[in-house]
């Protein structure tokens, strides 16, 4: 397809589609309008087609807020491109609004000159009132001046398409999201086969629903193709990607697969103990379906119990892990501290959400870093890691277990609501390609000391029940060096505190040096961690393209830090940390390295926009 430079063509369907590099669409509607499904299908289709894809669902905490209300709006943002993508996108180019409330909430996100596609049937007097509109905004000339408005009677068109189908009115109405999907498929010249197949499989047991959804999908596509109602038509060519097999994956799915993989690499059963909590519950649910892989999920009575159960399973020699969110970590902290004292290997996953307290359960934040580092009584260090993208959750959780087992320590993994729900293409590995995880359980009684230590790592031996003559009792009381017996000796206590700290510090011996993207020295270093990676990287690349002296440093290891971090921080005139909290990593870096680290923070329950970071950096550079 030739690259086309001219503007949107007026003759609609007949003209060749205009070629674009990147598009950001936001599907929005009532919770019951099926926008998550529509977005997921569009993403999968685009990924299979060969675009790079990045998605971000945004849904309310209420399961069913009142229909048509502002609080009940659910949205799914996705970007797809003919080049590599690192974020779900800043400016929305196409807004689909299935009702007035959705329009009200998301219109501010639509770029000037963008496309608004609204289900005009839903703009009834009642729905307008629920969204606090005095008049119908679709008829407002000011709106048409700012964006291109396409009012499509989707409900009516859906009902017409299904006139012959034996379903009641409500069931037919529920199909309208497939009309939307079909229309958008036409608008961006997408193939529909994968969605057709999905409908065939998903509704195999309810043929009437299967038929209705399939018909509605086609009706939406044909509406675009033949009605000429949309005078625009686009295509986004395939992206260049490394060879391999790909699938779409979100962060929680990647965590579940990574956990099952870690257990396989260690030749151990996986014991995942948890208590349902947003946004971590998917990990429990995904793993519960993996009994055939010797995955043992336990849904305990509370967060405390799931931490206790994790310790018990680790003592027994399993790969033990618990998953939760910030409020759950609060409850677990006593038992996490016991795990620090027992020096047993396990992983604690915190899929962070907005806090404090119940906070914003379905929104994203990175404000539990200091909790992970310091939220326990006493001197209680443990390693902390954070994945940088949805697919990276897979690799990070395997690494977390490698550290846990090698260094005999609980390890924190800090994911985020954004990573949990956001999705991207993942190049699927072969299990055989992954390095196995070496696990050693001593069996020799001669010289066995429960708190004897490996000279390199300072890890104590992982002696497990069932091993004759290695019987020993662990406990939360301070341990005597080597023997592990209870000790109240003051010198021993300090020695043990220092040993536990030094053991965690030595994890850094096994970490690669941190690497910057950009010049090795210069004006500004932008530091990120966790899910802010994509936005910061994209922002820095834009600044570099403008010739600015800016480099990007992303930290996966938050405790201990890579050995060369201090040196890197010293090579730039200014250092800024962009994070979704009030400067927690910046605070740690300042304390640790005595550098005047600046903070760029955001605590709105949303990930960074690229433009926000670009602006902040430009201000620092001026």
């Amino acid at each position, binding site marked *: 397809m030739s690259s086309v430079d001219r503007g949107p063509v007026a003759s609609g369907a007949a003209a060749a589609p205009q070629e674009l590099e990147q598009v950001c669409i936001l599907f929005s509607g009532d919770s019951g309008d099926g926008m998550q499904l529509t977005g997921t299908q569009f993403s999968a289709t685009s990924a299979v087609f060969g675009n790079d894809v990045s998605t971000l669902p945004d849904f309310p905490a209420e399961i069913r807020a009142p229909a048509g209300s502002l609080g009940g709006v659910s949205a799914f943002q996705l970007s797809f491109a003919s080049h590599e993508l690192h974020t779900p996108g800043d400016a929305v180019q196409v807004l689909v609004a299935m009702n007035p409330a959705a329009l009200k909430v998301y219109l501010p996100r639509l770029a000037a000159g963008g496309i608004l596609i609204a289900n005009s049937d839903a703009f009834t007097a009642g729905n307008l009132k629920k969204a606090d509109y005095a008049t119908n905004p679709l008829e407002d000339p000011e709106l048409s001046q700012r964006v291109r408005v396409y009012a499509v009677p989707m409900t009516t068109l859906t009902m017409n398409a299904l006139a012959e189908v034996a379903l009641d009115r409500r069931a037919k109405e529920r199909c309208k999201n497939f009309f939307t999907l079909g229309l958008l498929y036409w608008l961006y010249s997408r193939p529909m086969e994968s969605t057709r197949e999905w409908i065939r499989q998903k509704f195999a047991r309810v043929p009437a629903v299967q038929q209705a959804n399939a018909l509605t999908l086609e009706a939406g596509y044909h509406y675009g193709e033949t009605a000429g109602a949309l005078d625009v038509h686009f295509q986004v060519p395939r992206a260049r990607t490394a060879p391999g097999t790909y699938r779409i994956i979100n962060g929680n799915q990647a965590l579940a697969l990574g956990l099952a993989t870690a257990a396989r690499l260690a030749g151990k059963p996986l014991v995942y103990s948890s208590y349902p909590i947003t946004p971590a519950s998917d990990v429990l649910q995904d793993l519960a379906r993996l009994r*055939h892989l010797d995955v043992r999920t336990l849904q305990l009575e509370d967060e405390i119990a799931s931490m206790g159960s994790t310790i018990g399973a680790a003592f027994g020699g399993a790969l033990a892990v618990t998953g939760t969110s910030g409020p759950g970590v609060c409850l677990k902290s006593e038992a996490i501290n016991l795990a620090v004292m027992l020096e047993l290997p396990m992983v604690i996953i915190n899929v962070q959400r907005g806090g404090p307290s119940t906070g914003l359960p379905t929104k994203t934040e990175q404000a539990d870093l200091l909790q992970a580092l310091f939220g326990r009584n006493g001197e209680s260090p443990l390693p902390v890691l954070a994945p940088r993208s949805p697919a990276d959750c897979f690799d990070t959780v395997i690494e977390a277990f490698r550290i846990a087992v090698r260094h005999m320590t609980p390890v924190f993994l800090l994911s985020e609501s954004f990573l949990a729900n956001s999705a991207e293409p993942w190049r699927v590995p072969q299990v055989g390609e992954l390095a196995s995880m070496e696990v050693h359980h001593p069996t020799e009684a001669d010289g066995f000391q429960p708190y004897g230590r490996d000279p390199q790592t300072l890890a104590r031996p992982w002696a497990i029940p069932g091993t004759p003559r290695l019987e020993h009792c662990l406990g939360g009381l301070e341990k005597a060096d080597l023997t592990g017996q209870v000790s109240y000796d003051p010198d021993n206590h300090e020695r043990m505190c220092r040993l536990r700290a030094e053991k965690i510090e030595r994890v850094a011996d096994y970490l690669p040096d941190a690497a910057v993207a950009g010049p090795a020295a210069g004006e500004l270093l932008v530091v990120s961690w966790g899910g802010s990676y994509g936005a910061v990287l994209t922002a820095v690349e834009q600044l570099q393209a403008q010739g600015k002296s800016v480099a990007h440093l992303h930290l996966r290891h938050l405790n201990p830090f890579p050995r060369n971090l201090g040196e890197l921080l010293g090579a730039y005139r200014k250092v800024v940390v962009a994070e979704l909290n009030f400067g927690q990593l910046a605070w740690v870096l300042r304390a640790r390295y005595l550098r005047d680290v600046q903070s760029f923070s955001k605590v709105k329950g949303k990930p960074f926009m690229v433009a926000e970071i670009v602006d902040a950096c430009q201000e620092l550079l001026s």
Partner: protein
Amino acid sequence: MTDMTPTAPLTRKDFVSDQDVRWCPGCGDFAILAQMQKVLPELGIPRERIVFISGIGCSSRFPYYVNTYGIHSVHGRAPTLATGLKCARPDLQVWVVTGDGDGLAIGGNHLLHALRRNVGINILLFNNRIYGLTKGQYSPTSELGQRTKSSPDGSIENPVNPIGVAIGAEASFIARTVDVFQAHMHDVLRRAAEHSGGALVEIAQNCIIFNDRAWQHLTDPDARREHVLYLEHGKPMRFGKKLEKGIRLNGVTPQVVDVSEAGEENLLVHDEHAAEPTLAYLLSRMGPPRFPTPVGVFRAVEKPVFERLLMAQLEEAQRRSPPDLDALYRQGETWVVEEEGER
């Protein structure tokens, strides 16, 4: 060191650790430890396959004193560690040692759920009706009006009945014994060890320092003869010095009767295996001043055991689908990029 060839029969000494036992002289815990160390070698389970897990409190020092694997964990949470351990390692015999504060106050939730799930662990609840390790505050089993350091004017809380809690949680094995009833405790501990599901044993235990003689209505020699009802499966309920008294049901209300007048055939007969816990509950309500205190096995029923159900699900799933991770990675929609720049 004892010769530990696997076939050598174990003795009490094999289960005595090298730690100094640090309970107060005269504490009831000594007798429980001694009885446990006597029972363990009789079970035929290798020492390395036995684990004791405790929480916090005087009783929770127990794991240090038995020469098996053990964890002295945090307050109230021992059943949760035991649950995780048993699911990772169903081959182990796991004992939980707890007290009335550890098990019924801070850890009440975990006790309830461990019993409800019927995890195959044996929970020993040392009930001294006081907080000992924190030096004498009232506990969830302290009596209404009891004067303690934290209730100088008398406790204004109703005590909880551990046996009743276990019945409410539908525990499959529930028993009570007393620290000084050595032979009786031996039999009860053994029964608990041999039970396949979750077991709760309440052990009335004397705290000589902060709540001495709290159980004297059971332990004084006269009282023991007069006021203790020894439960025996299939036997009519008789008690008293010459077993001259018995329990009879009047409607749904138990009565103490003279056996010679009422006739033995009219006495209530104990049934540990009753499907419904009604009888066990009725027994749990008995005690002074109107009734004798029952000791022994209140309830012993077979129910599906948690970790066995888990293992059965694992086996069934593994029978149905091969443990193929590569296939799992590729579930759902995948696409192949053949070589750089094309697809």
